[in-house]
Every structure is written in C-alpha cells, then in structure tokens.
C-alpha cells in the first residue's frame, strides 16, 4: 500500500509538477501566474455560460439540473481530452523495463499509474465541475452537508471516464499488439474511438437532455451514469446515503478499470515492445530527396506512430467537422432568415477556428523529438527547414477538415460564394496562427525528458498555453460579433469578417516575425 501511494504520487508529480521541470526560478515565477490567470479566465467563461443556462432553468423551476448539464459537459470534455492518456501511461511507456525489474507486483504498478492519471483527470474535470457547483449553489438553497458533498464530489468525478478510457486503451492495445505495424494500428484504433465518441456525444447530447427534463432520469441513465446520478441526488437532497453510493460506484469503477488493465498487462506490453520482423527485409533503395521532404516524412511518421500524438493532433480537426454539423443542426431548427443565417455563419466560423486551436501538432512537436532532438541539432539543417516541416504537418492535417467544414456549411446553409470564401480565408489564417503560436510556445517550453508520450503531449506547458490562447483568440471575435450584431443594424458577417481577417493577418505576420527573429535563438538554447 505504501509503495502504491508513493508511486502514485511520483506519477502525478511527473505529469503535473514536472510541467516546469528545467525552468529557472525566475521563469517559473513568471509563467505560473500567467497560466493560473488563463485557467481562471477559462473557468470564469465556463461559469458565466453555465450561469446564463441556470438563469433560464430557474425560470422553469429546474435550476438544480445545472449539475447534470455541468457534469455531463465535464464528463464528455475530459473523456475527449484524456481518451488516450491511460493507454499512453499504461502501455509502451519508457519506464516499463525499469518498473518490471523491481520487486513490485503488477497490481502495485498499475494501481499507482492509474491513480496518478486519475488525479490528473481530476484537474481537467475541476475546470468545469467547480464553476458548475458554484452556479448551482448560487441558484439553489443548500445545506452545509450539500456544500461538503458538492466539493468532495470532484474527487469521484473522473471514475467513469477513466474506466472507459482504460477499457478502450486495453482493447486498442490488446488488438494492436497482435498486428505487425502496431503503432499505426494503435493510432488508427484510437482515432476511430475518438471519432466514435465525438459523433456519439454530438448525437446523444440533445436527446439525453430532452428526456431528462421531460420524463426524469431513465433507468439506463441511472445505471450507466450512476456516479453522476448519485452525486446529483446527494447534493440536491443532502443525502448521505446517496453520497456513499456515489463513493462506492466510484470505487467500483476504479477497481474495474485497474482489473481491465491487469488483464494481460505483461503480455501486451511485451508484444508492443517487440517489432515483429516477418519474412524478408524491404529492398535497400538509395533515393535522393530534399531535406524538407525527408523532414516532412519524419514528422508524419511521428504523428501516425504515436496514438496519443495522433489523436491529439486530429481531435481538433474532428471537432471542426462535428461543431459544423452541430451548428447546422441547431440552424435547421430555425426558419430560414438571412439574419439568422448570417449569425450562424459567424458562430460556425469562430467555433471551427476554436476547434482548430485545441491542439495543433506544433504545440508538442518539439517535445515529441525527446532526446532525438540532438540528431536535428547536430545536423546542418537550417532552422527554417525544421520550422517549415513542423508547420506544414499541422497545416496539411488541418486544411482538409477546414475545406470539409466550409463546404458542408456552405452547401447546407445555402450561403453565398463570397461568404464561403471569406470563412475559408479566415479559417486558413486562424489555422496558420495556431500553428505558429504552438511552435513558438513549444520552442519556449519544450518537455523533452518524458517517460511516456502522454507526458510530452498532454502535460506540457506549451500544449496548455496554446490551447487556452487559441481558444481566447477565437472566442473574443465571436463575442464581439454577437454583441455588435445585437446593437448595430448595419453590421453583417460579410462586413465583420474582413476586419477580423485583417487583424488575423497582422497577428500572423507578428508571429512570423517573432519566430524569425527569436525562434532560432530559442531553438539553439534548448538543452537536451
């Protein structure tokens, strides 16, 4: 037990505390308040949105349901964010050999890793869960017990999503371990899971809430989402029994999650670490190519050979298409009106821009090099070629989803060619800016000493900062647009978006100049 606790803390520390590993005290003191401020801003924005929803619900006498909405949001969000985390930590991690050589039981190792990941998930959860609880307590009468249950509930929340990610991780790795090209299959399976989840979330969200608010909790909901249900009951009725149920369900999910990972843990990991060499080797072909092409090839093979990185890079692209479809579904519920169409053009464009900024590949591409960065640094490769290959990778991944989103929206919403082109140009620029910002931040805050790809991809300062800043940069024009639209009769989307494009262009040029001026120096100073 002592060993498990110690090891859990090491993992948690590795994932979160080591965000700042290698930072000088001065840099740490500078970065920490900025990150906290940005986190608070995001939490406040979420809280503000929930407050508006709760206000509408309270008019219908259903303000307590804000817990369900908030917790669902937190559940789906953290599920998407942490989908590949558990498998990244449990399977094919660099510390496997070292841990297996120690006199520790598999159960101890798995439990420690599981708890470490669980604590990290809890941090993601709390970004949505805490404002949800605050909003609930603003709109509802509550007891001291409800308050205690409410804030303790954050501890139980990741249990179900963590269990699901464990099951998915187990299945993906168990199947892939039997394949020849394991990493490619791991990435493809993980991607299929991510797409499946995104589609399921977008399709099921509205129907769940419609049923919930009209007929109460259906039995399937009580079973599947038992932890959310019991927590809801415990907080709204100050019921100790329901709180205990919630605790037991959480415990059950944790035990089940660990048990699933325990199945064939050693066998799967051993198989994953061996590259099966069947038959004859590939023919030795000497072909000349240019450095850029080779670097691009290397970047793409890095993306598609790492499930965590692959899903992380593509989740934004998938979300682009999903958010376009969701916008269209909501849009179809209104009678066609040019003003409504105009507003939805804005919502679609800014939402897609926001999704593109979730996790640009450049925000972790330097970290993913790990100690291999010394290969790039020792070769006579110009910094510009490295930048070009890393930026092209993200743009090549993003552009198809931009085209698909714009085409789907343009055709279904019947918007003019000019508007389609304007949205397209804006999204291209937005993607370009996300790419540049991601690379700049990753050069500034690389995380090169990692034991699992999850740490490089998910637990780096650059990824967090890029995501938060990209979201803010995309959401601010949307808020200005909506506020301005409601006050100015003469404003249309086709007038507004060129202004934003112009601003975006200035932003892009500024980023390019910074990268050109400071990037190489920062790159040269990275110590491995």
């Amino acid at each position, binding site marked *: 037990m002592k060993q498990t606790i110690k090891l859990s803390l090491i993992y948690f520390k590795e994932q979160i505390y080591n965000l700042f590993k290698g930072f*000088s005290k001065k840099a740490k003191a500078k970065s920490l308040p900025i990150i906290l401020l940005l986190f608070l801003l995001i939490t406040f924005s979420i809280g503000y949105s929930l407050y508006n929803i709760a206000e509408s619900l309270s008019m219908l006498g259903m303000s307590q349901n804000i817990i369900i909405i908030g917790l669902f949001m937190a559940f789906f969000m953290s599920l998407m964010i942490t989908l590949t985390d558990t498998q990244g930590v449990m399977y094919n991690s660099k510390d496997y050999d070292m841990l297996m050589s120690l006199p520790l039981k598999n159960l101890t190792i798995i439990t420690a890793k599981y708890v470490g990941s669980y604590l990290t998930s809890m941090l993601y959860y709390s970004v949505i869960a805490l404002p949800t609880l605050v909003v609930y307590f603003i709109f509802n009468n509550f007891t001291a017990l409800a308050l205690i249950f409410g804030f303790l509930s954050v501890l139980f929340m990741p249990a179900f999503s963590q269990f699901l990610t464990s099951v998915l991780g187990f299945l993906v790795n168990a199947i892939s371990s039997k394949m020849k090209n394991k*990493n490619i299959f791991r990435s493809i399976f993980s991607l299929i899971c991510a797409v499946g989840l995104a589609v399921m979330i977008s399709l099921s969200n509205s129907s769940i809430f419609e049923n919930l608010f009209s007929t109460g909790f259906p039995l399937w909901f009580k079973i599947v989402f038992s932890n959310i249900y019991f927590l809801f009951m415990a907080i709204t009725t100050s019921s100790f029994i329901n709180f205990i149920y919630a605790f037991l369900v959480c415990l059950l999910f944790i035990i089940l999650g660990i048990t699933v990972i325990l199945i064939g843990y050693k066998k799967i990991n051993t198989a994953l670490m*061996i*590259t*099966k*060499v069947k038959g*004859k*080797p*590939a*023919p*030795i*072909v*000497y*072909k*000349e*190519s*240019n*450095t850029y*092409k*080779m670097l691009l090839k*290397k970047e793409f*093979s*890095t993306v598609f*050979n790492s499930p965590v990185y692959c899903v992380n890079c593509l989740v934004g692209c998938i979300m682009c298409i999903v958010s376009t479809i969701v916008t269209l579904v909501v849009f179809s519920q209104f009678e066609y009106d040019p003003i409504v169409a105009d507003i939805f053009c804005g919502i679609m464009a800014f939402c897609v821009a926001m999704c593109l900024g979730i996790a640009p590949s450049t925000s972790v591409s330097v970290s993913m090099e*790990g*100690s*291999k960065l*010394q*290969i790039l*640094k*020792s*070769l*006579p*490769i*110009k910094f510009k070629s490295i930048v070009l290959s890393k930026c092209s990778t993200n743009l090549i991944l993003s552009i198809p989803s931009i085209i698909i989103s714009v085409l789907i929206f343009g055709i279904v919403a019947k918007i003019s060619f000019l508007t389609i082109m304007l949205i397209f140009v804006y999204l291209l620029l937005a993607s370009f800016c996300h790419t540049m910002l991601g690379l700049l931040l990753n050069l500034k805050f690389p995380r090169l000493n990692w034991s699992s790809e999850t740490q490089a991809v998910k637990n780096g300062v650059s990824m967090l900062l890029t995501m938060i800043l990209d979201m803010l940069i995309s959401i601010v024009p949307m808020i200005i647009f909506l506020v301005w639209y409601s006050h100015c009769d003469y404003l249309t989307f086709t007038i507004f978006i060129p202004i934003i494009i112009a601003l975006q262009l200035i932003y892009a040029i500024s980023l390019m100049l910074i990268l050109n001026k400071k990037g190489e120096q920062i790159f*040269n*100073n990275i*110590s*491995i």
Partner: protein
Amino acid sequence: MLKIENLTKKFGDKIAVDNISLEVESGQICAFIGHNGAGKTTTLRCIAGITGFDEGEITIDNISVKTSPIEAKKIIAYLPDNPELYEHLKGIDYLNFIADVFKIDKETRQKRVEDYAKKLEIYNELGFPISSYSHGMKQKLALVSALIHEPKLLLLDEPFVGLDPNASYQFKLIMQELASKGTTIFYSTHVLEVAEKLCSHVVIIKCGKIVESGTMEEVRGKKSLESIFLELANETNN
C-alpha cells in the same frame, strides 16, 4: 582542425566546463577521458553545436561554431553516447535522410553505405525498421550515418559501447583509415586500454577542467594511461 579557446559552459550555477582550451590537428585521433560527470559529453555537444556555450570560442577548420553553425556542422559528424534514432523509420530510410541532409549523391551514398554497413555487419538489417534493432545495431547504424559524408571532424561519445567484438575491431580499423586520410577524430571513452593503442593524443578532463593533454607518449611517460588517469584523479581529490 579543432580549436577550443577558453570554453565555459554553465548549467544554472553549476559550471560544467570551466575555461578549457585545446587544439586537435588534422589526422589525429584524440581520446577525451575523464570520470563520470567530468564534462566530456557537454564539451562534445558544444563542439557539435547541440548546446550553446557561455564563453569562449570553438572553430572547426577555421569555421566558428558560434557564428556559422550550419557551415561547421557540414564538415562534422557527431555520434551521441546513446543513439536514439527515429525508430519508425527503416535503417536505409534513416541513412537516406542523413545523406539527403548532407546532399550526398546516389552513387556515393550507395558506395559508402555498402562499404561501412558491410564492414560493421549491419547491411542485411537495413531493410528492417529501426524499432526492431538491438542497442548494438542502433549504434552500428548511427556509426554508418556518421561516416556517410566522410566528415573532416568525427566527434564520438563513447562509440564502442554496445558494439560486438568484430564491429568494435572493424570500427577501430575504420578510425585508423579515416585518420590516415586526414580526418580528425575526437572521442570520449572510459576504455583506457583501447585509447592507449588507438590514439595519438589524449586529453584528460576533471570537474570541467583539463588536467592533462598532449601526445600519448608525453602524457603517460613510461606508465600506463590507466595509472596516469588514477594518479590525476587522486591528486585532485586530495
């Protein structure tokens, strides 16, 4: 060929390399020896342009590593102590990548790959992904990649670690052959017996400072390199 003047490298408050100066001429094989954490790898990384340095100057064939890093890197090759390669590439893909970076034409790369890879007994494995390689095979591949452009300066960080006896022997022959053609080889090692037989020059580093340097004969006198090294280590400790 390689000239280091007053090189200092700090990591925060810790001085890893403290004001060192040395010179290695063309065609010399120079062993760089020192205890763990003495500053060998840091020095090699500074020369290879991987790590920046705080003070001093490094020139390779009169090209400054600080002001013209790309030009300097074109004539060197660096082999790290633990060759982490792009595992998802095949051996031949990695060699093609390196050859492309150095703009080696098809015929030349084929000739050199066949020559070195066959000598080091890795040629038949080049069609397989690097992820299927053992540590020693990766080391061999990294060696071939370092030799593919026949650099003027070869920087090697403990190159014999992980090599089997035959590859180790072959590599020593390759080193001697390259040196006879004018290539400068500067390599760190803990295997003093090999250094003694192979190298014309030796540099001993202790706690970031050079404590002895010169030709092998000058440094060791009538003693073995091991006893000189141990004497110097104890001297500084006392």
